[in-house]
């Protein structure tokens, strides 16, 4: 891993450009040239290139993107669809939103190349409804692309047609689950579908559908433009390429750090200027709240799919939420669990009822009212949810609880001994540091 020392801005390369979101800026910096390359290739060759690059899904699960595309049955007479999952809602995850804000055309170009590869003539970008500003940026970019001939009929004179629809979600985390997203896109309640059939066979409107994360699709132009070998030269053996690492929480310079997969948190924290002044790392999530938390002992775990899995967690969306020693882990876990309770779609019993119960058990513990046996009860509840739910939402809800009990059992028990939370909740806030001198000065 020693060669990973610098950032590799590709997706984020334009972010500091003047009015980076405009077509003018994007084209001036080389945008839509990869599209010409792709249109000069046969669609299967584009799929092969993406396969060869080793690009794995950036939405969290890490499924090889090229392989997903090759599952689309091309002999199926129904239309093929590309759906971009831009319903970024996981607590801590904040990579697609700034990407679409700053470089919407990168996504649009990726959409065109990807649709061309799977022979789709309709593509949908499903954007989380709450991020209205992003929705407008992407809508504007799509409009600009139409007017410039990048979308619509006979794109770049190639004879290839593509229409893109920007769709906004109605405010449900579950719609980030791909089949629930399809339900929402079709106008129904967002609840996951029974699989099989898988979306590649019967997805949107029961037609073959590829659903990819924003970052995956936005990576495609660079793969086509600079070559699969270039892409594969970065990252690790089984997790090739680069990705956006979103650092938030108790670091000096939170933000988006684009780096090859396999970088470590220690390196990223260095890049971010270190942990908050005078504090030390306590725990962190590698990929959003649904991935089991890790601790300071995992600072050197390579942040690729295999490395994080080896440490008992998941790479997820590389949403690195960093918490220092002022944070009560139980408090953080309870807040996350309240989120899952609020976002459980209600379809299946374990997730719906389990999250309802978990919140109550955790809240009692936080108030110092439970008993040590409640920890075993919590773990048993988690055991009865994990792998028993209809989709991964329920699984995700258990991750912070079981991992935090694994790493911080004593801290849970301290709540009981203390008759409540032993932490000062204000100490973990951003204003805590600022407030201290003010108080002393007075």
């Amino acid at each position, binding site marked *: 891993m020693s060669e990973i020392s610098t950032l590799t801005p590709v997706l984020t390369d334009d972010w500091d450009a003047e009015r980076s979101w405009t077509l003018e800026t994007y084209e001036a910096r080389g945008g839509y040239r990869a599209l010409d390359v792709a249109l000069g290739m046969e669609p299967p060759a584009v799929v092969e290139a993406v396969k060869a690059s080793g690009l794995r899904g950036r939405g969290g699960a890490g499924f090889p993107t090229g392989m997903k595309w090759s599952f689309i049955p091309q002999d199926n007479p129904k239309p093929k669809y590309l759906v971009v999952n831009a319903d970024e809602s996981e607590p801590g995850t904040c990579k697609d939103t700034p990407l679409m804000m700053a470089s919407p055309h990168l996504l649009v170009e990726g959409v065109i190349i990807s649709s061309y590869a799977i022979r789709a003539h309709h593509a949908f970008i499903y954007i989380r409804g709450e991020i209205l500003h992003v929705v407008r940026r992407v809508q504007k970019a799509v409009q600009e692309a139409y007017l410039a001939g990048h979308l619509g009929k006979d794109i770049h004179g190639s004879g290839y047609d593509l229409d893109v629809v920007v769709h906004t979600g109605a405010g*449900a985390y*579950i719609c980030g689950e791909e089949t629930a997203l399809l339900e929402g896109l079709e106008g129904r*309640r967002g609840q996951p579908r*029974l699989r099989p059939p898988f979306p590649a066979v019967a997805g949107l409107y029961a037609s073959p559908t590829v659903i990819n994360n924003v970052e995956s699709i936005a990576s495609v132009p660079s793969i086509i433009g600079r070559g699969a070998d270039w892409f594969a030269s970065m990252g690790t053996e089984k997790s090739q390429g680069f990705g956006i690492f979103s650092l938030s929480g108790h670091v000096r310079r939170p933000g988006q750090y684009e780096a090859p997969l396999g970088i470590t948190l220690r390196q990223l924290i260095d890049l971010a200027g270190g942990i908050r002044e005078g504090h030390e790392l306590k725990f962190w999530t590698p990929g959003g709240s649904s991935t089991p938390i890790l601790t300071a002992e995992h600072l050197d775990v390579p942040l690729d799919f295999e490395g994080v899995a080896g440490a008992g967690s998941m790479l997820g969306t590389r949403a690195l939420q960093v918490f220092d020693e002022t944070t009560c882990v139980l408090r953080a876990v309870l807040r996350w669990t309240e989120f899952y*309770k*609020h*976002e*459980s*779609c*209600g*379809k*299946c*019993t*374990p997730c*719906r*009822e*389990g*999250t*309802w*119960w978990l919140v*109550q*058990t955790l809240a*009692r513990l936080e108030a110092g*009212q*439970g008993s040590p046996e*409640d920890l075993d*009860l919590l773990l*048993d*509840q988690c*055991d*009865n*949810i994990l*792998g*028993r*739910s*209809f989709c991964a939402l329920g699984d995700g809800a258990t991750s912070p609880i079981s991992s935090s009990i694994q790493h911080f059992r004593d801290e849970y028990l301290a709540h009981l001994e203390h008759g409540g939370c032993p932490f000062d909740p204000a100490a973990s806030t951003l204003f805590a540091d600022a407030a201290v001198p003010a108080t002393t000065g007075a």
Partner: protein
Amino acid sequence: MTTTPEKAQHDQRTDLVTVTIDGVQTSVPKGTLVIRAAEQVGIQIPRFCDHPLLEPVGACRQCLVEVPDAGNGRGMPKPQASCTLPVAEGMVVSTQATSPVADKAQQGVMEFLLVNHPLDCPVCDKGGECPLQNQAMSNGRGESRFSGSGGVKRTYPKPINISANVLLDRERCVLCARCTRFSEQIAGDPFIALVERGALQQVGIYEKEPLQSYFSGNTIQICPVGALTSAEYRFRSRPFDLVSTPAVGEHDACGAAIRVDHRRGKVMRRLAGNDPEVNEEWITDKDRFGFAYTREQDRLTYPQVRDEDGSLRPASWPEAFAVAARGLERARAAGGVGVLPGGRLTAEDAFAYSSFARVALGTNDVDFRARPHSAEEADFLASTVVLGTPWDGGVSYADLETAPVVVLVGLEPEDEAGTIFLRLRKGVLHGTTRVVSVAPFATRGLEKLDGRLVPTAPGEEAAALAALVEQGEFGVDKHAVVLLGERLATSPGAFSAAAALAARTGARLAWVPRRAGDRGAVETGCLPGLLPGGRPVVDPAARVDAAAAWGVPTLPEAVGRDADAIVAAAAAGDLAGLVVGGVDPDDTADPAAFRAALAAASFVVALELRETDVTRAADVVLPVAPVCDKPGTFITWEGRPRPFAAVFADPRSLPDTRALAGIAEELGRPLGFRTPEQARTAMEQMGPWDGARPAAPQVPAAAPSPGEGLVLASWKQMLDDASLLDGDTYLAATARPPVARVAPSAHAALGDAVTLTGDRGTLTLPVVPTVGLMEGVVWVPARSAGGGVLADLASPGTRVTVRGAEL
């Protein structure tokens, strides 16, 4: 607990898959779900959302099993929902019986289900027959860790109406989505849906549109908890206090299997029986809720005879028999007696009427048709309908699922034959069946069948049928099925055209009457030209055959009078006596003429359940037993016998058979049987006619008669002013309100209400503009407003004038 009897088991299956469940190897058809395969080897996996007649959803997660080998040598990492997992060759499954993992998963899900479920089993209707209660005992823990740890349950206000019939208690709901899936997938009335999310998810309705469905009661029955309850039954009894008796629905000709639950001589509720050949597990709300009529205040509970002062006075049964016999004998001498049994009889009782007319009264003046009818219809019944059964090539329910084309002519199945409607919908949703309807407009029912309309004004069905054959696009060939409704009797040439269509294309015909007893009355010869078993009166050999069976020397040779002719003859004084069964005068072709005939006849014997215009005019009134108080058989529209036993023994009334036998014995010409069981034996001994059958009618189509006003189209809605629906206010509240339907252009001209004027009176109704309704046609429900169309508006086949009105 719902399980599927695998009716397909005896089929020749070549695509069998062998799986091992809890160490037991079994072979099941490819595609079978693991939960079904487990049932096959006697292993019951707990479940809530799973229902064999609904699409799998995998929502409740109660049926989790461990799969150590998915059939590819590899185990599945997580427990699997056995209700969504199809078997695979070589698959190994461990249920809760052998797998600690599966057992713990199930116990965990059960515990979660109870997190938000109230502990109100002691006052819950479902308590004692509740899958949640039962499976919480079999697959759950005794003590609640949730309430033990101080958990707070989600609560809601107690029940809310999702329709007048159906109440929803949201606290109890386990969100299995059986009710919503039934409404969408089976009934096609998706007026309920899951709304909100998480633990606050709930079954909801659009506030302005309650659950509008003729089949809503099924949601109550398939609810695996006490979330959906019946307004009529709520808090009325406990399941363990009930005695259940299987029975057959008496409200239509479908023969749906039902279960009558009663306590101390009183019906508390009725549920759907499970008969895969007929109604599967579904019944109409009419069959489910329509049973209060037997408890109405006007129920007849003792025989009465006309006293010398002209009033009816109570009498003993022997006296009533004797008075009836004397009166009928005199009337016979004074011109004759007509017999009008009505269409609600069991086959045994119908056989008794048929026998009574021939043996005791020596007449063929008998006709069960208490509605507009025609000679052409009688000929069609004799030539084409009688004796047909599903076992000799006749149309069956199963055929409705598989026939590529089903043509409905003069039949609105959703209103007139709910079980047919559901079967057709099943075939349509499977993509095997297309429905074509010859009718004046595309009803909501036809839309739910995704059916194609052949717009046809009433009276023009014959021409439409002739045209259908010519148009290949409809695909009417030998695989097609044509269902003919009873109102075709008012459309000259329609039955003849149907017979011609069948002869030319090989398509199969079935006659679908409205009443439970109609088909049985045909089979038992309650027609002026037909003796029991399809024996034509005009065939001497058939008469000899029947006479021998009855033990009489001869039978009347001439074809008798049909119901209209009986009414006319009685009014004219040609017939002096009438024996009338369950006939509502307002259902007959000419209600005023019927009442006049009652008044004119010198002697009337009425056999009825409740006081009616007939009993008020009668000289002898005999209280007869409702279907729950006697054994009997209904014959479905298919020709399938549906025998049932008596639910109660109620001494206040007697079966029609017993009453008629009593009179016949007083007349000195006994029928040879007294009880329904004996009548059934006599019927079976007489058997079906194996001689020549009459030819199908060849009545030409009537030319459309131009005239003033609009052509009147009408049929009875399922829930209307029928006397068998009396007494159930909740059910009545779900009836569709009476409206007049006209084409949108006519609506523009007429406004939102109209007054229809015909040769019998006027009706004023709100207007619903109906897209696709033919110009020149107006539709009104037949018995939903006033005294009904026949009594208060117009005679069959005539036109009405329509003008705008204020309501």
